[in-house]
């Protein structure tokens, strides 16, 4: 699960990790009202106005409705004109940003609608660094990743100058050791107060990753100020969905407006669904088989409309919901059901399919491939239902048949 920057910073601040002062705003008035207290509290006449969406690249991204407005704006009017001038600048920008669509390198062409802003104090930036805590699968541990190349895309740094990426494995029994923090600080060419502050920062971040069950914390940039403070200028956090049950406060931060409505409906029904751009809807049991079904459709010349794994113990209701979600997609020209029954029995899924079609209706061709436990019973149920269903003998056979029928 992803959260917004302002929420990530709230979680960091609660753990004593330095972040800029800031206020979240859901309306133009709230954004304007945040300006004066921020300037007074920080003593800095500069504030920053940031669009809050679940995607990166906001600084360079622009709004579809206002191509000259960026996702992150530094408000400098306060330097000469005082707080009132900063307020006016924020008002004008907030009016254009709220409700508009921000397109960044990570949102795709469709962009994301902005419904909240974050107003932050300006920071005196001496250096910009990169810092992240994430899982290293090969090591089966979290690692700290740091780089002197803050503000850049880290994948690019990793490709072009891999020597500029520092790594430290976090032993779950010990946490990040002081010497590791010291090594990282040294590698980032920090000394004096800045090195000490960095050490405290990175240790707290490593602990936060384990205690909050994050799958990624990324601070890009992490800034060192002129007087040696180390502050998270940006903050991105995502969480292990399987651990949310023990963090109800974080689960409450979910912003459903950031998620695809069909994917959300599927999740609520206990289904794994991901929408794609093709025309062949798929309903499969098992994640690996569901992926392989999409791949095979592509292999025979089609394009899958979705990934859908009904899991190992789907009920007739879940199958119905799955059909509803698939048929709701106007691009779908045919549906391919591919089941290898292990624990999932073919007769149960067949009953589910028949019920689903009776309840939802079916306006596109349907190909069903059943294999495994109780396969004969399953095939009989479908044959006797009188539904217009084409049977397939294998995954490839099914993919070819649905492609032909939906052409």
């Amino acid at each position, binding site marked *: 699960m992803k959260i917004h920057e302002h929420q990530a910073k709230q979680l960091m601040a609660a753990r004593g990790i330095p972040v800029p002062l800031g206020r979240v705003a859901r309306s133009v008035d709230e954004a304007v009202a945040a300006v004066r207290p921020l300037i007074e509290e920080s003593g800095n006449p500069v504030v920053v106005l940031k669009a809050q969406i679940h995607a990166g690249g906001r600084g360079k991204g622009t709004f579809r409705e206002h191509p000259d407005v960026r996702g992150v704006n530094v408000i400098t009017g306060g330097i000469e004109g005082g707080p009132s001038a900063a307020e006016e600048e924020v008002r004008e920008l907030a009016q254009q940003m709220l409700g508009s669509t921000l397109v960044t390198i990570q949102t795709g062409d469709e962009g994301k609608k902005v419904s909240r802003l974050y107003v932050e104090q300006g920071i005196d930036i001496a250096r910009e660094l990169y810092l992240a805590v994430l899982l290293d699968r090969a090591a*089966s541990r979290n690692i700290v990743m740091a780089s002197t190349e803050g503000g850049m895309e880290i994948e690019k740094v990793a490709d072009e100058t891999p020597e500029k990426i520092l790594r430290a494995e976090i032993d779950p029994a010990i946490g990040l050791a002081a010497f590791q923090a010291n090594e990282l600080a040294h590698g980032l060419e920090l000394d004096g107060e800045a090195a000490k502050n960095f050490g405290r920062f990175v240790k707290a971040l490593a602990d936060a990753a384990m205690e909050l069950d994050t799958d990624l914390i990324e601070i890009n940039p992490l800034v060192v100020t002129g007087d040696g403070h180390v502050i998270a200028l940006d903050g991105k956090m995502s969480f292990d969905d399987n651990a949310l049950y023990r963090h109800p406060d974080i689960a409450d931060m979910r912003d459903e407006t950031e998620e695809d409505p069909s994917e959300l409906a599927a999740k609520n029904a206990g289904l794994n669904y991901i929408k794609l751009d093709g025309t062949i809807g798929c309903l499969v049991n098992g994640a690996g088989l569901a*992926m392989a079904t999409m791949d095979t459709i592509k292999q025979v010349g089609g394009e899958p409309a979705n990934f859908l794994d009904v899991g190992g113990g789907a009920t007739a209701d879940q199958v119905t919901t799955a059909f509803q979600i698939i048929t709701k997609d106007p691009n779908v020209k045919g549906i391919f059901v591919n089941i290898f029954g292990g624990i999932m029995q073919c007769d149960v899924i067949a009953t589910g399919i028949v019920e689903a079609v009776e309840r939802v209706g079916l306006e596109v061709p349907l190909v069903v491939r059943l294999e*495994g436990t109780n396969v004969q019973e399953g095939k009989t149920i479908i044959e006797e239902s009188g539904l217009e269903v084409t049977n397939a003998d294998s*995954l490839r056979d099914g993919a070819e048949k649905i492609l032909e029928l939906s052409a």
Partner: protein
Amino acid sequence: MSVLVDKNTRVLVQGLGKTGEFHTDKAIAYGTEMVAAVHPSRAGAEAHFEGETDHSGVPGRDDTYSVELPIYATVKEAVAETGATASVVYVPPPFAADAIMESVAAGLELVVAITEGIPVADMIRAKRYLQGTATRLVGPNCPGVITPNECKIGIMPGYIHQRGKIGVVSRSGTLTYEAVHQLTLLELGQTTAIGIGGDPVNGTNFVDCLRMFQDDDETEGVVMIGEIGGTAEEEAAEYVKTEMTKPVAGFIAGTTAPPGKRMGHAGAIVSGGKGTAEAKIAAMKSAGIIVAQTPSDMGEAMVRALG
């Protein structure tokens, strides 16, 4: 021979809830030597299993079975009383990593964790706990391990298997069934089929399994089934290239998966351009592995690899 499990494997089940009970019954029907259950709230009682023997499993048994399985409060006690050598974990996700560690502490040779949805942080700790012990963990989030005709631990349907000469190792449950089914139809059969699971942190990886199959006299070839996410397949390809003499066929799921999306399995995600199906397929091909274009061709790919 076979790997990991055979007719001498004595299995205890951790978590005798609905799922654990259902699959324990199937395992007994198959002929697996189930010796104990660990379920603290039911400790002291016995669980009764009876039904018709699954004759696709261990040969030479009566047509029906009736078993009283003793239930213990702790793994330690169950091992002391029954001599169990392996454990299968059906414990719900919040408690599953602890159940794994309990079996490690009790000194079991093998722990097979079926549970899906264990928090990654819990598995990081459990994996740390495993370090320096003699226990092998398979899974979590996997179908289990089966040596046809001898021992079935997990949730795979027994009857699709046939004892033979091919080792199977896979991150995906249903794709394992596809491969096994094809190998059975082609009369190649399996020595052992191992589901290593779809989670990002797991106990046993491809290289561990390939090494076991390489050292196993009965295994003549291996089918490995991977998917997007991580670099375990690339590491396996490197092992095949440098160490392995037996033929290997494979398949990688997720060529069409969009980047940044988790495809059902917690570990199936392409992130930052890493973990793509293309990179895995290329690494496998360069190691001489015959890669099937679709899952329907896995058995044929093995036939070609065998030459």
